[in-house]
């Protein structure tokens, strides 16, 4: 019983921290908004909050939770702690999908954009899993290396077309992870990641089992291919929704799950809430940092996350026992 209370307490603490970060995200920005403005019903303050600040904060929350959980699912599917959207070519594939959309159907709606990104991420994830299955000796570090090369190949194919159409700088600009363009009416697609995240939580126990290997899961009576497909679906949906709304956010799916697993273990049913919370908190902090560092200008979150993420990840692999 006391264990249960302890878990609840921990989660409450995390939620409190998240609440503080989210509140900070609502009130930090170029336009000055105070709590009293909101309470007194100041119309300008309210419209600013509802058009810009709330969408941005929601997008950060969802993207943080979604990308981190995608990382967990990919790590379970490949049984490798170093696999995540960054190291499996998933982000590059979403990029390629967007580029294909821009080239083939530039005037079609956002739904098509989403479909393109989704189809490309889904396809690339299947190819990556096929490749991983062929790797003879499953050296922990070798699998993500293959994934990075795979991503590089996808990237070079996209680059080829970008060069041909002379849109290299534009593509780079679209892809840079950045939440400053998140406004009401332009970010709602990111809510698609919510059902994917919930679905993952629903199947958490099955993903835990999948992490023990194909033979083992089949032995336990699990429908292995079906669960793998659900995982692929959730990851592709989340990643494409986030990339379309906010651009590429590297490292998140790599660091957060590893830190959580060091602290809380590997039982997904228990740890997934922590993963989601930590992901959101980390992303919010990075965004706030980007907003404050060169105030009144902004550093895109892609840069802050990359720098912090790369440093944490390097520390993680270099100091790991």
């Amino acid at each position, binding site marked *: 019983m006391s264990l249960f209370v302890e878990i609840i307490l921990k989660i409450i603490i995390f939620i409190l921290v998240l609440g503080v970060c989210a509140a900070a995200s609502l009130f930090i920005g170029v336009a000055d908004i105070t709590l009293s403005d909101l309470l007194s019903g100041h119309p300008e303050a309210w419209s600013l909050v509802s058009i810009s600040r709330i969408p941005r904060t929601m997008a950060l929350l969802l993207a943080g939770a979604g990308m981190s959980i995608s990382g967990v699912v990919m790590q379970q599917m490949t049984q490798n702690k170093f696999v995540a959207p960054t190291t499996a070519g998933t982000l590059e594939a979403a990029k390629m999908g967007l580029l294909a959309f821009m080239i083939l159907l530039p005037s079609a709606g956002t739904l098509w954009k989403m479909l393109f990104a989704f189809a490309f991420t889904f396809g690339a994830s299947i190819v990556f899993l096929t490749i991983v299955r062929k790797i003879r000796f499953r050296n922990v570090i070798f699998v993500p290396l293959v994934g990075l090369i795979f991503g*590089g190949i996808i990237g070079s194919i996209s680059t080829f077309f970008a060069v041909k159409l002379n849109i290299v700088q534009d593509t780079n600009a679209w*892809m840079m992870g950045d939440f400053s363009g998140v406004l009401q009416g332009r970010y709602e697609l990111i809510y698609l990641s919510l059902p994917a995240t919930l679905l993952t939580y629903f199947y958490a126990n099955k993903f835990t089992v999948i992490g023990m290997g194909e033979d083992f899961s089949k032995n336990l009576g699990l429908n292995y291919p079906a669960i793998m497909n659900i995982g692929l679906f959730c990851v592709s949906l989340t990643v494409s929704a986030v990339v379309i709304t906010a651009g590429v956010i590297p490292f998140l799916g790599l660091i957060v799950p590893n830190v959580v697993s060091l602290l809380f273990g590997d039982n997904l049913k228990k740890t997934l809430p922590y993963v989601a919370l930590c992901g959101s908190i980390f992303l919010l902090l990075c965004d706030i940092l980007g907003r404050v560092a060169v105030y009144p200008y902004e550093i895109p979150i892609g840069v802050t996350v990359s720098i912090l993420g790369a440093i944490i990840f390097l520390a993680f692999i270099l100091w790991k026992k």
Partner: protein
Amino acid sequence: MEKVTGDKAKLWIAAGALVAVIALYLFWQMGGSWQFALNLRYVKVLAILVVACCVAYSSVAFQTITHNRILTPSIMGFESVYLLIQTIVVFVYGDNTYRVLSDWGNFAISIIGMVGFAFLLYLLIYKRGKDNLYLLLLVGVVTGILFNSLSSFMQLLIDPNDFFIVQGKMFASFNKINRNLLGIASVIMLVTLYIGMRLARYLDVLALGRDQAINLGLNYNRMVQLFLALIAVLVSVSTALIGPITFLGLLVTNLTYELFRTYRHRALITACCLVTGITLLGGQFVMERLFNLSIPVSAIINFAGGLYFMYLLLRVRKI
């Protein structure tokens, strides 16, 4: 025995093919002012040969010491360092870049930056008593991602006109080779390659695997570090001279392994140099003369190399 003689014959054929491609490239549609055309063309041929030798040796040696056919040294972050340097220069100087920094200066800074980066990386891993090569690679790749994000951030802020200076550096091209640089690059390449070829027999031993190599009396870590140093120099020279061609190494080494059965590195590396030369010159010839395409040859090689490589990954049963 028969196989070895077969390889020897193939080597001669490859050498013949390379000479033929060079001749074709030099003399195709010369036109009236042949001196002018020849003067332009031979510089490109020389540059291609220098790059071919750098890429061939570094990729084969790298794949041997990592025991892997799907890796190439350029993924280790060299190209990210190069791009970061180029971006910073344009970011700081804008359209004054060419006036402030001579090609010489740029070449020197790039090489020092890349080699310095590699040695820092080696120090970081080996001083910590971790001799895991894959760890070294992963750290290199992650640092590369970090540098790439920094570059793309700066590239967003650069004026679109100035960005074309950076974009010109993002893709390897043989169309703007500086003759003076070609001289120094060839000298560095030849010296490194000479040392590398003298050490090639140690690669034969390293190819047997770490345990076997140690068993045969090789100072394994020392040897690997030595080859890593040679690789760093060669990759840096090639990248600083023409720009990044990430997947060329993958493409040509695997082509070489398909064509040649030998495990002796002296022959293998020679073969790979020839294959790389033929690929690059042939690609350049087709793009430049037959299709009149303005796309840099490196973008095409990355594209074709990438596709070929995906095919290779999916076709082979085990990696």
